[in-house]
């Protein structure tokens, strides 16, 4: 159980407070409701590049990191297709420094040309390190546009191509800030050895004076239902053949999400899972195989990816995957299997609550999904699922014409 209080400043900034006095630390987490899906198709990778620029100094504070480190704090951030999230952990006695830093960069950035130039390079190196200079590293650059034809999920957060990042201009940076980085578009969570009254006072002091800005109204092209299977083959210098199979699935808060999420656990969580038992252990086809989902807010991806053992025929391996999916469609799973994945869900949640930062982030995510209290109640959506619900959802999802398959083969 994660207890929290919520209040909203006049400028629209939502603030959640989670007191946890078992630690001397505090967390300040700010989520901005903007991700790669909100980018201009000609300027992909921008939300993520922008995240880097948020550390290049703000209007009144030339360096972001230095004053934070001086009070014993640390910070980081990440960008996804749906959101951009920034977090600070620091000794709770120095909480005000976090308010000072975060409020100033919500007020305005320094917009330094030098910072833009350097971060363009840093992000290009990140692009190479994570996506190009790795075996299978570019798979999502190739797969997303096969899965999504309309929705901006068709590009990865790093961007479609290096040139989009290389061409970024300071005017674009300013416009992006104005559009997305304002109090109405943000959720702040303060957690740890803090108290509500103190947080209210600090929030009023540092964030209330920030202009509320203009609300960004999201209106994205939604992905139509897929009616034809998509299959593509790619060859590269990789050590083994791989199969990536994707089905579209409900968004994070849509009906059927929890069933689909549990289905990925049935298929591949732990060594007792079906894919591991059947296709790694009993009938060795893959050296590793996983099923997972992206937890996206709009229509998401249910992914099965496996690396084939040497000498195994790709078409046969593909058939083996289908056989597992067909089994979920035709026969209800065992009660024990369902209990197992529910138990795992429950204990994973319990283990997650040992981390203050995880709790703070999850509060922010759930608030973005619609209601922070889902952090405590979402589990009910999982516990009420019956074996026939899983079977029904498998039939909704795993249709031949709805599959996108990429064969990533060794040269």
């Amino acid at each position, binding site marked *: 159980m994660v207890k929290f209080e919520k209040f909203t400043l006049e400028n629209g900034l939502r603030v959640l407070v989670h007191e946890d006095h078992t630690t001397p630390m505090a967390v300040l987490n700010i989520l901005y409701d903007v991700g790669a899906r909100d980018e201009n198709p000609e300027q992909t990778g921008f939300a993520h590049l922008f995240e880097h620029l948020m550390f290049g100094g703000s209007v009144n504070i030339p360096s972001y*990191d230095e004053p934070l480190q001086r*009070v*014993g704090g640390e910070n980081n951030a990440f960008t996804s297709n749906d959101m951009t999230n920034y977090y600070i952990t620091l000794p709770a006695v*120095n909480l005000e420094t976090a308010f000072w830093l975060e409020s100033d960069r919500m007020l305005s950035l320094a917009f330094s040309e030098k910072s833009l130039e*350097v971060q363009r390079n*840093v992000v290009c*190196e990140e692009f190479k390190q994570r996506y190009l200079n790795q075996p299978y590293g570019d798979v999502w650059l190739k797969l997303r546009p096969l899965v999504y034809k309309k929705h901006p999920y068709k590009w990865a957060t790093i961007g479609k191509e290096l040139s989009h990042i290389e061409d970024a201009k300071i005017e674009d940076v300013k416009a992006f800030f104005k559009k997305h980085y304002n109090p109405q578009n943000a959720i702040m969570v303060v957690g740890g050895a803090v108290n509500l009254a103190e947080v209210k006072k600090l929030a009023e002091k540092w964030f209330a004076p920030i202009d509320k800005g203009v609300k960004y109204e999201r209106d994205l092209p939604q992905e139509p239902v897929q009616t034809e299977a998509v299959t593509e083959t790619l060859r590269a210098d990789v050590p083994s053949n791989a199969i990536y199979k994707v089905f579209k699935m409900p968004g994070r808060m849509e009906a059927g999400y929890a069933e689909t999420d549990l289905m990925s656990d049935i298929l591949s969580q732990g060594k007792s899972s079906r894919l591991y038992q059947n296709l790694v252990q009993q009938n060795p086809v893959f050296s590793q195989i996983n099923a997972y989902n992206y937890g996206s807010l709009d229509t998401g991806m249910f992914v099965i990816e496996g690396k084939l053992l040497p000498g195994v025929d790709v078409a046969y391996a593909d058939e083996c995957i289908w056989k597992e999916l067909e089994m979920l469609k035709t026969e209800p799973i065992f009660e024990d299997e369902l209990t197992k994945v529910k138990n795992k869900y429950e204990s994973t949640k319990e283990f997650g609550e040992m981390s203050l930062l995880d709790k703070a982030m999850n509060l922010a995510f759930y608030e973005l999904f619609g209601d922070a209290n889902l952090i405590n109640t979402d589990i009910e959506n999982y516990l009420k699922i019956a074996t026939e619900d899983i079977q029904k959802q498998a039939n909704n999802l795993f249709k031949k014409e709805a599959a996108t398959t990429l064969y990533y083969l060794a040269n």
Partner: protein
Amino acid sequence: MLNRTQEPVFKQIENIDFIKAEKYLLKNEIPVFIVNAGEQELVRIEFIFKNKAWELEKPLMPSITNAMLTEGTHSLSSAQIASKIDFYGAFFQTDYNHDRSSLNLFSLNKYLANTLPIIKEMLTGSIFPEKELKILLRNQNQKLKVGLEKNANIARRAFTSALFGDTLYGYANQLKDYDQVKRENLLAYYQKVYQPKNCSIIVSGKIEKSVLALLEDLFGNWEGFADKEDLKVDFKSSQEKLHYIEKPDALQSAIRIGIPFVNRKHPDFIGLQVLNTALGGYFGSRLMNNIREEKGYTYGIGSGIASLEKAGYFFIATEVGVDVTQNTLAEIEKEVNLLKTELIGDGELSLIKNYLMGSLLGSLENAFSHADKFKNLYFFGLDYGYYEKYIHTIKNITPQQLKDLANQYWDYNSFYKIIVGKM
């Protein structure tokens, strides 16, 4: 009017409270250390064994023995073990490092009486079935094949091998090694190492009294023999300092630079950690500032000191665009030498001190992290006085002392330099 240019007043961290491990002995004298804290109804129990032997002819024996613990016992098959543990929402993990092999259980308290007996089975009745062994070796072999395509991995392997040669600390697994693993060798190693006399149990989480009783009940009568033999690691570093592995198609070069170094037991270790922090130990470090934030050569660069039981090593690691490989090397050399020739400014040093104190405080998040701190002491023969000394050193170390340490321990010319990519 709010003055946003003025930073808020801040406080220094004066005290850090450690939740100390309490020691108990089971009937057969297995030491059990308990770190009791937290509100979540869960527990982590680690069974930790010292590695006892390593031979160049059977380099994978210790690690594969460890990984195979989950793969079958006299009464449970691999699949049964997995489904039992998974059914109770528990997790287990085999863990092998240079000094120790362990088997760790994460469980909700309410299911501990169901999950812990499975661990006992694995520690006392593993049979290393041929079929599962074959699968594990094949899959690990495939994983290594993928790993060998990553320049950063290749650099890491070449680095430890240059520093520590063909020893437990230096040897990099080869694909062919997987073909030579034999079941009987694993069984022999299992008999030698997974013994009550060679076992420490570390329990952390919300600990009820019943936990100790359960441990006593399951493990207190575990009989075995004591193998007094201690593993020696006699390493010879390579003569060659520069190891360049060319990858014509690389977009980035992986760089790894460093030397064998003192470990946590050495009196200078803490001061050297402060020095390392300045060079590359945090986001605001000199290497990050220069090579990422000033020049944009890389997504990240860092340095660190690894403490092994019988050695240690200092390293700098990064991946940079191939066109700036040479420039990066020159800048790294410059930054190392600057710390030897010029005193660290007071502003920078006080920032580092505050950062390190904050980071120590933040690293004590829950019972698990307090237990991890205890392991750092216990396995190096240290006590909690080490952390008092750590805090004292951080608060009092001077720019002159840091400069002296840099001169005593760092000589860029004697550093091993591994470059995988192009230059």
